[in-house]
């Protein structure tokens, strides 16, 4: 397949809808040719609007959009040479699969033999050969999804745009198709912008991920960097599953104190000399069984234990108020409804610790867990910004833990 990937550049792009809602504000984004990037964020963060502006389905209020070297800001969608996969698939109901896939080529005046050849080729790749003469109504959800994908691939466009294309598939199929999408991208090498609200999908698919909130770009980086060095409380709370634990804390005398616990900061941490209030963040994976050398020991009382087979999540309450800011709320609201608070009077901070499943738990009463002091995150309690420093960013060696 001939590939002519082109980059995408957004310069100061803003979108204000009638009624004065700013959906996207001053967005700068540069996608390199052939890259797979994901726009992720809670609903209403403007990610779909960004995609639609790139497609030309939505006009920009300010800023410019470039595809390759061409300024397409005021170009009609039919002339931008982008292909889009819609959440609803939007297959043409009265056309066969073959005609659906060939429609874009037909509109661009590709001669019939060439159209047939390309449709056959893509249908072969996606396993749609035997469905070519069916109407969309006679297809299953997964097959429709593949036709929608095939319709985009046949076009051999400069850019693929995908608006939550997996959200209508059931959970198992979604995981399979996700992996296939990555393979497909490796094979085709077309620049792809993928929109989702699911951070797991974002992390697994994206070479780089742009996290949006309230129309503003929070962070645009590799999944690894987003996970390891979130720039603020929102990104930290949004990325990672189970989510990062938060508690209000105080740094003084080279120690971080929270909920009656005191943990010594690693030597050399720039925050070691500080004396200030912070929001402490700890990933569930930063916990271990009692007695790990060099790790802080915490005595906790498990409230809930969730068995997952290989591992086990131990949930325990801290004697500290729950960190409840706009940022953490916005991050949580996008997760599954399971995360909604069932017990509304829960005002204490609740931590989740991932522990090995073979660790013996006491039937009741306190349990001692270890916590890696190198993997603590600190955020400014007022602005939510991550506090930079060796202590808050896990050193590269911690990756092995």
């Amino acid at each position, binding site marked *: 397949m001939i590939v002519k990937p082109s980059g995408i550049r957004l310069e100061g792009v803003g979108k204000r809808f009638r009624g004065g809602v700013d959906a996207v504000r001053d967005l700068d984004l540069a996608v390199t040719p052939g890259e797979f990037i994901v726009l992720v964020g809670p609903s209403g963060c403007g990610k779909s609007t960004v995609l639609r502006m790139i497609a030309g389905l939505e006009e920009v209020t300010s800023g410019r959009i470039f595809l390759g070297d061409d300024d397409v800001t005021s170009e*009609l969608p*039919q002339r931008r040479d982008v292909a889009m996969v819609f959440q609803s698939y*939007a*297959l*043409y*109901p009265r056309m066969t699969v073959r005609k659906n896939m060939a*429609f874009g080529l037909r509109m661009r005046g590709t001669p019939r033999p060439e159209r047939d050849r390309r449709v056959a080729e893509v249908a072969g790749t996606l396993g749609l050969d035997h469905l070519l003469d069916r109407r*969309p109504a006679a297809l299953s959800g997964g097959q*429709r999804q593949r036709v929608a994908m095939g319709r985009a691939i046949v076009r051999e466009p400069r850019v693929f745009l995908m608006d939550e294309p997996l959200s209508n598939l059931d959970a198992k199929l979604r995981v399979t198709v996700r992996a296939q999408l990555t393979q497909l991208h490796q094979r085709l090498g077309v620049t792809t912008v993928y929109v989702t609200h699911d951070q797991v999908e974002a992390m697994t698919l994206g070479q780089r991920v742009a996290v949006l909130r309230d129309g503003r770009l929070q962070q645009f980086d590799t999944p690894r960097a987003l996970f390891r060095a979130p720039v603020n409380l929102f990104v930290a709370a949004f990325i990672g599953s189970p989510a990062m634990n938060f508690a209000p804390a105080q740094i003084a005398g080279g120690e971080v104190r929270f909920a009656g616990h005191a943990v010594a900061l690693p030597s050399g941490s720039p925050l070691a000399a500080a004396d200030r209030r912070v929001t402490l963040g700890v990933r569930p994976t930063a916990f271990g069984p009692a007695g790990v050398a060099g790790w802080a020991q915490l005595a906790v009382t498990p409230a809930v234990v969730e068995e997952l087979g290989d591992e086990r999540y131990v949930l325990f309450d801290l004697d500290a108020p729950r960190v409840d800011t706009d940022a953490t709320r916005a991050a949580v609201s996008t997760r599954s409804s399971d995360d909604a608070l069932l017990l509304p009077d829960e005002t204490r901070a609740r931590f989740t610790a991932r522990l090995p499943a073979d660790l013996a738990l006491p039937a009741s009463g306190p349990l001692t867990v270890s916590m890696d002091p190198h993997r603590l995150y600190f955020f400014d309690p007022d602005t939510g910004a991550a506090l930079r420093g060796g202590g808050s960013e896990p050193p590269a060696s911690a990756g092995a833990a």
Partner: protein
Amino acid sequence: MTAPRGDVRIRSRWAPYVLTARYLALFALACFFLMPVYALLVTALKSPAEVSVVRMWQWPHALSLDNFRIVWPKLRDGFGNSVAMALPASVISSLLGAANGFVLAKWRFPGADFVFALILFGMFIPYQAVLIPMFQTMSYTGLRGGLAGLVLVHVIYGLPITTLIFRSYFAGVSEELIEAAKVDGAGLLASFAFIALPIAPPAFAVAMIWQFTSAWNDFLFGVLLTTKDRWPITVALNNIAGSQAVPFNEAMASALLACLPTLLVYILLGRFFLRGLMAGALKG
């Protein structure tokens, strides 16, 4: 899902009586309103000798088509004229209404709602108000007397309702479908022709039935704008029924003949109402 037989029905003790009373009342009302239809059918099917006012409600001794044989020569020209007028009037008006409706619902422009309101306004202009200027315009342009002028008038008079029908229909079509076509490179005309029209048959059925019926049943424009050899069937019918001595068996047979095409159109197109032409476009 129907409940399997033998389940215990949950209902009030009085339900059987209430149900019986309700159906009796409905049946009585239906009979009352169907009386003229009964008289029409029975009289038209009697032999001319059997017809009399006294025995109007009696069932015919033998079914006879003699009445139809008598009136058909008088109606034939009008029938042909009406077909030649109502078919193009409804097809053209529906096509234009489809184009209007598509643009107003799915390819919107600034002020689309205002334009739509203006078009709808056309529905509320009574025929009588435009009669004289229309007559003059038609005379001036030389369209008076033939069927072309009548077709034109019906096309224009039908636009508000057909526009309304198609706009409502297309408003229910997923926005993403049209956007997919745009991204695939289709402009306004291609989106209309390849995407919108193929899913529009249900709207066409409604618009065509409506337009065909109103054009077929029109009397005022027909008598005003056409000359004797171009009279539609409604005018011809009036001439039979409106004669001095009323052979009402002939009038009944003529009326029956005159209303057959509209019934036929309804039966032929009605099946499109329920067909799910959007099936499969969206998700699972």
